């Protein structure tokens, strides 16, 4: 895995990746909360995970 801290594709915040992470695993950005999918480990590629649309019942 690349040693550089990966950045969130949504907010550019630094994303922590567990040492034992696997491809297609979901991780979260601590800053914007976006769920991210690990598309590739080497080189590391993160993409926004599909979201369930939320209308809060309103």
């Amino acid at each position, binding site marked *: 895995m690349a040693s550089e801290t990966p950045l969130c594709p*949504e*907010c550019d915040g630094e994303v922590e990746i567990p040492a034992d992470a696997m491809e297609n695993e979901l991780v979260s950005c601590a800053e*914007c*909360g976006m769920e991210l999918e690990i598309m590739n480990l080497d080189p590391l590629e993160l993409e926004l995970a599909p979201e369930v649309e939320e209308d809060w019942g309103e």
Partner: protein
Amino acid sequence: MIRAGIVGGSGYTGGELLRLLHFHPNVELTQITSREHAGRYAHTVHPNMRGVSRLKFIHPDALDACDLLFLALPHGTVARKIEDYARLAPKLVDLSADFRLDCAASYEKYYGEEHPAPRWLYRFVYGLPEVNRGSLTGANYISGVGCNATALNLALLPLVQAGLLERAACEIKVGSSEGGNKSNPGSHHPIRSGAVRSYKATGHRHMAEARLVLGEDFPLHFSVTAIELVRGIHLLAHCYLNEPKVERDIWRLYRGRYRDEPFVRLVSGRAGLHRLPEPRVVAGSNYCDIGFELDEDGTHLVVIAALDNLGKGAAGSAVQSMNLMLKLEETTGLEFPGIYP
């Protein structure tokens, strides 16, 4: 240990100062004044302090000299006695609006009267650490901040400093404690409860502080509406940018400006119930939460800020500024994150 006093300790801001200073490790609160309640325990007015503080209110005429005085009096009263307070303590933190502005003409324009002590205006440093940290460090005279102005200033400052803001129109929703602890017909429960009352759609005097911090170079409008809330301010600002941006640009901009600020948090989440700032989350704390959402065209940005009007909007900022004044760790006594839910 700094020996401090609170002048005007029976109001809501005085009570908040009492709560914060009581637990401050470098401050010994030795006196608190109230004309109306002199001789009574402070907890008779601030019941959250029962069993915590044994301080009794004293009459203001009985004030002793001390190291530092917090002045939590109604606007217009401090300036008339500023020489007396300065004789009692070498360091003053004034939470009223009397010394927030840097020029007498501006004070007269927004507060409707001639400033009673204009030569003192220039001695005070405006107590917003995020803007004036250097000048506050070691200062002797610090002015507190206006709560609505603080929400505006912190929300818009990164856009202004980046030269991105073309104009902004803001709505600020506020709780009842902003009105102070003196009742009036508008604060009577049947009238105030459930209210959604726009009481200052234009011309709010906190505009003076916003212009002081943000400058005069762009059109700025804000209105204020009282809602069913005791503590808290919710600012929603429609900002029009002079060039299109993407959301990551906004994140970079705000993160760059506030990364090292201990009491400004960026809340623009994609997960959880509270995805944008909300006053209840910061109630009782010194935090100002700021979030944003960018419209598809990239130039219409909605910025939202939330803070506690008695915390970051008054007593919290005052204590944060005092820490700088005394060259203490800036966050001392203010680490409390608030309560939830």
